């Protein structure tokens, strides 16, 4: 048994979502964590502080969340797979360097265990109000990949997936967990779950490639990544830069070329990145959309409505950004009413309303805790009687 197998459970275990995230990080090859304590994410750093040294990884508690993400970026450029974990207030501070990570094409994973905001809100209570923040919280035109697990098992598998996406696309990836699944203990059989293959970042094969860390000639828009200490005199900057990394603060064409490539890097691969789950959608004319913890009672409510003979489908985005808009636009042609169930007043609604039209979407939101299946069922029934 190697050290990895000794610290990551290999059989049935009773774990919290946060613990599963930490195990997923180790399994994905994460060997550097910098973070700052915040409820309700704290089990992730606590477990990693214990596990990382056992696999020759580095754990550091920084002075704040700004510094945490900064340290992660610095470490990623030495070749490490890096992680930080936080919650709303900390994520707000991280949005500064999130933009920097996107601009410098630095692979990293941020776990945001969402809590009830805004501001301090209720630290121990759940929320899903950071979905738009992940997408638009940093300034300027940037793209993000954001994933949403629904249970402890997915906290493990999607953390691995988050690292894989970060490494493959050389970009920051956010795992938008929430305090319900973060602290819910569930049985996970680690021997049976479908563990994703581990992806490593693309590396330069020639000296010329190594000296063009932001190369724009790759067909997939993803340049190979050289590391510090390899003798390539790298220039890494958050300013607009050329393929070689040279800062270009005036020329319009350089900016246009760089930002459009960074956009295309995510946009043209959205079919590979997007993941979702759907049930009863072949013939449905009503659709319930939910993600994260509330998707579980929502699925229960949909099942009950189906049993009563209503043509209600269930759709769960697993990757929130880029959004599964292609599939949702197909469903938009077939459904007359959409129920969006989430623990937020705004949450994902702008995206769902954009696709289905604001008059089609009825929002079933509950703050600080997950809805019961019955609450969702009742509200859908009430609305159907009133509006359909």
């Amino acid at each position, binding site marked *: 048994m190697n050290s990895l197998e000794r610290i990551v459970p290999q059989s049935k275990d009773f774990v919290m979502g946060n613990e599963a995230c930490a195990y997923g990080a180790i399994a994905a090859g994460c060997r*550097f964590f910098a973070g700052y304590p915040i409820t309700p994410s704290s089990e992730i750093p606590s477990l990693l502080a214990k596990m990382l040294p056992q696999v020759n990884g580095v754990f550091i508690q920084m*002075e704040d969340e700004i510094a945490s993400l900064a340290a992660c970026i610095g470490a990623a450029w*030495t070749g490490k797979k890096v992680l930080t974990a936080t919650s709303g207030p900390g994520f707000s501070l991280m949005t500064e360097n999130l933009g920097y990570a996107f601009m410098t094409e630095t692979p990293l994973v941020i776990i945001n265990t969402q809590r009830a905001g805004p501001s301090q809100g209720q630290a121990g209570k759940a929320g899903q109000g950071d979905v738009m923040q992940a997408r638009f919280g940093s300034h300027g035109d940037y793209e993000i990949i954001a994933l949403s697990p629904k249970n402890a098992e997915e906290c493990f598998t999607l953390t691995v997936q988050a690292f894989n996406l970060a490494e493959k696309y050389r970009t920051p990836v956010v795992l938008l967990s929430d305090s319900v699944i973060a602290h819910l203990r569930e049985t996970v059989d680690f021997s049976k779950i479908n563990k994703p293959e581990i992806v490593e970042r693309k590396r330069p094969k020639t000296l010329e490639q190594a000296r063009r860390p932001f190369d724009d000639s790759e067909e997939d828009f993803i340049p190979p990544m050289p590391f*510090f200490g390899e003798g390539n005199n790298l220039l*890494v*900057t958050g300013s607009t830069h050329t393929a070689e990394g040279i800062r270009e603060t005036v020329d319009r064409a350089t900016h246009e070329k760089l930002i459009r490539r960074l956009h295309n890097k995510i946009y043209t691969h959205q079919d590979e990145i997007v993941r979702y789950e759907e049930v009863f959608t072949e013939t449905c004319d009503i659709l319930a959309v939910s993600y994260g913890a509330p998707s579980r009672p929502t699925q229960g409510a949909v099942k009950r409505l189906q049993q009563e003979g209503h043509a209600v489908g269930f759709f769960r985005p697993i990757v929130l950004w880029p959004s599964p808009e292609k599939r949702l636009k197909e469903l938009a042609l077939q459904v007359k009413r959409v129920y969006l169930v989430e623990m937020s007043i705004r949450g994902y609604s702008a995206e769902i309303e954009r696709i289905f039209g604001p008059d089609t979407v009825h929002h079933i939101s509950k703050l600080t805790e997950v809805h019961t299946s019955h609450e969702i069922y009742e509200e859908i029934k009430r609305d159907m009687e009133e509006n359909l």
Partner: protein
Amino acid sequence: MKPARIYRGKYLRRVPSLFCPGCGNGMILNAFIRAVDELPIPKEKYVLVSGIGCSAWIPSPNINMDTLHTTHGRAIAFATGVKLANPQLTVCVISGDGDLGSIGGNHLLHAARNNIDLTVVMVNNSIYGMTGGQVGPTTPHNIKTSTTPYGNPYHPADFPAIVSAAGASFVARWTTAHILQLKDSIKKAIQKKGFSFVEVLSQCPSHTVYKKEENAFEILEHFKSISQAGAIKTGIFVDIEKDELSESIYAQLGD
């Protein structure tokens, strides 16, 4: 001393630099690469980290080594990640007083407290130069700047004293009138296993904070006289040995 072209070819990406005429940054760049040249550490083992502002441009894009040009104030936090992820690298931060001391003050304090093996060169020109001469954390009291048009109501920070109190292993201050002493201190700072901090009082002739002295030459003369008179303290203030962070962390690794 070797002729300048030797250093230029080996260490510089571009000549001339982008700095204003009379700026102290070129002199500090000169002192830094001469210090590096006298050390046995291979060039590819250096990572130079900087934040935002004129002096953050000293390493990036001027010096031909691995450089990381970061967000405003965060250079030390980025450098911490580089050093801890690969302790074989020699990590140096070169940035301004506003970047390292004002917006980045918290990172400076905690890197010194943790005694992580970084060399930090703080270029103190007493002003925000790049943005147009606004008051900085080191601007003398009562001085008029573009954001203190009636005189500076704030008090300047003494960063070597702050960093010493926070727990740094090596602390020095020189001025651009002390280039050889500066070079020697940078050398010692890089060799020191621990957090090293070198402040350089420098000149910004474009936004001078001095009443009488207007050009670089006059400001350098002023630096000489105030340091000789003891009006500002120069020299090495701290040079001690203590547990260093990356060594402490790496000592805990393994089964």
